């Protein structure tokens, strides 16, 4: 979507700048420039103080799309007799995603937004085109397929939240709320990975993910070894004393979960909806 790409460009441009929690005139102009159609309708009907303006609204809508996808995924799974052996876990996962959806919907509703309609879902990851499917068709009848999709969605969720979080940085309460959802996603990801017999953390590019050749894009960039230490300097961790040997490379990449860009989140989300 254009406005989200625009936002992403903004957040990239802003990546080394300070977070101002008191909106400046310039920020308000940016927010206005980035207003989604929903935000525009909000602006027409609500007092300014109650609104979630452009950036934050779009980030919340992105989070809602992700959480609704996961909620539907675990709801269908919990109803499947073929996945009965996983039921205790499925109830926990479903409850959390449902709570997140409720929370996000309430925030959006309370700030005058109109909730978007639910899309149709394709949990094979083919956007309703079987020829493009990432996963086998037995998602809800074969535990192995189900867990492969679950791992992909949870690891993806962790990275997607990281894309949305900076956009919420100007609102302290909202930022903290979404941070607390984000760490719950990471707990889920770890658990699902362990159920598949994987390490709980993502090592390098995760050898392409659960379906190498088809899930690689969900793990792109996870092998990063450089992190910013100042606004202009990146530290290559492999260059730190004691970390220059090959055996340290996996733990270095495992120690940081990397964000996806907002356009990448959009693209990957679209694989599961139509």
């Amino acid at each position, binding site marked *: 979507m254009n406005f989200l790409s625009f936002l992403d460009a903004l*957040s990239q441009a*802003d*990546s*080394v*700048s*300070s*977070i101002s*929690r008191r909106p400046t005139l310039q920020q308000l102009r940016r927010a206005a420039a980035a207003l989604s159609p929903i935000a525009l309708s909000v602006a027409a009907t609500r007092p300014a103080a109650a609104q979630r303006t452009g950036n934050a609204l779009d980030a919340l809508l992105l989070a809602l799309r992700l959480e609704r996808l996961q909620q539907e995924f675990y709801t269908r799974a919990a109803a499947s007799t073929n996945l009965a052996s996983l039921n*205790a*876990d499925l109830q*926990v996962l479903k*409850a*959390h*995603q*449902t*709570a997140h959806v409720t*929370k996000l919907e309430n925030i959006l509703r309370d700030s005058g937004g109109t909730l978007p309609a639910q899309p149709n879902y394709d949990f094979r990851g083919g956007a309703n085109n079987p020829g493009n499917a990432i996963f086998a068709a037995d998602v809800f009848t074969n535990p192995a397929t189900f867990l492969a999709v679950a791992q992909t969605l949870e690891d993806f969720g*962790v990275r997607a*939240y*990281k894309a949305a*979080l*900076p956009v919420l*940085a100007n609102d*302290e*309460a909202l*930022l*903290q*709320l979404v*941070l*607390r*959802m984000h*760490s*719950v*996603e*990471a*707990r*889920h*990801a*770890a*658990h699902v990975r362990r159920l598949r017999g994987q390490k*709980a*953390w993502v090592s390098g590019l995760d050898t392409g993910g659960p379906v190498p050749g088809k899930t690689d894009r969900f793990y792109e960039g996870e092998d990063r070894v450089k*992190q*910013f*230490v*100042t*606004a202009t*300097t990146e*530290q290559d961790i492999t260059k*730190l004393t*004691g*970390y220059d040997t090959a055996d*340290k490379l996996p*733990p270095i990449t*495992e*120690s*940081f*979960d*990397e*964000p996806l860009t907002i356009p990448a989140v959009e693209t990957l989300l679209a694989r599961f909806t139509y």
Partner: protein
Amino acid sequence: MAEPVTNSSFTFSALPSRRRFLRAAGTTVAASLVLAACGDDDPEPVPTSNLLSLGAGDVGIMSYLYRLKQLQAEFYQKVITAPPTGMTTAELDVLKEIALHEQVQRDFLRALLEQNSQVALLLAVQYSFASFEMTTRQGVLSAARQLEDLGVAAMNGVGNLISTFLNLNLVTKITSVEARHAATVRNLLTPGSFAGTDVVNTEGLDKVLTPTEGVVELNKFSSIPFTAAFLPTS
């Protein structure tokens, strides 16, 4: 491991017991030992009158996270050096991997503080794990659970205090790894407890601690109590 840091004003061994404020070059509060603000409103005498400041601003928050990582790295190192009874090789291997992550994150944060001229914040402290049962599997996993859940809650409590996008990004990158650790050790201790109701509430939200609350937990282990008094509060 952190090396003892001296600055021009003092060394750790020369820690003064009397009221004394030290100001490190370039920053007013970095690594200063400040007198405990335990005046009239605190009826209990505080045994140690000196507090080690975590610093101010974003670097102060990174120094707080550095101390959490230092605590965790040292904990896992002790476990690996003297594994508890009853722990399987597979379980110990998981803890060894976590130990490496804690070391990477600690040493990266150390490099970050150094490159921001905050060497004074790296003053060496000792951590004591006497309150943990370190010789049994149950004791070690319970301790690991406590420290990892602490890390998650502490990190969830600093995002809204950070002033740059880069630093916010950095914190989110390590927060989710911390949550992966927490889920993993929780499952080792009690299968299926990866996101138990003691940490994730009915709204699906993980715990959160302010730096002031987190420092109370850190100080249960540290040889010198820290203070978050100069960290941002909003």
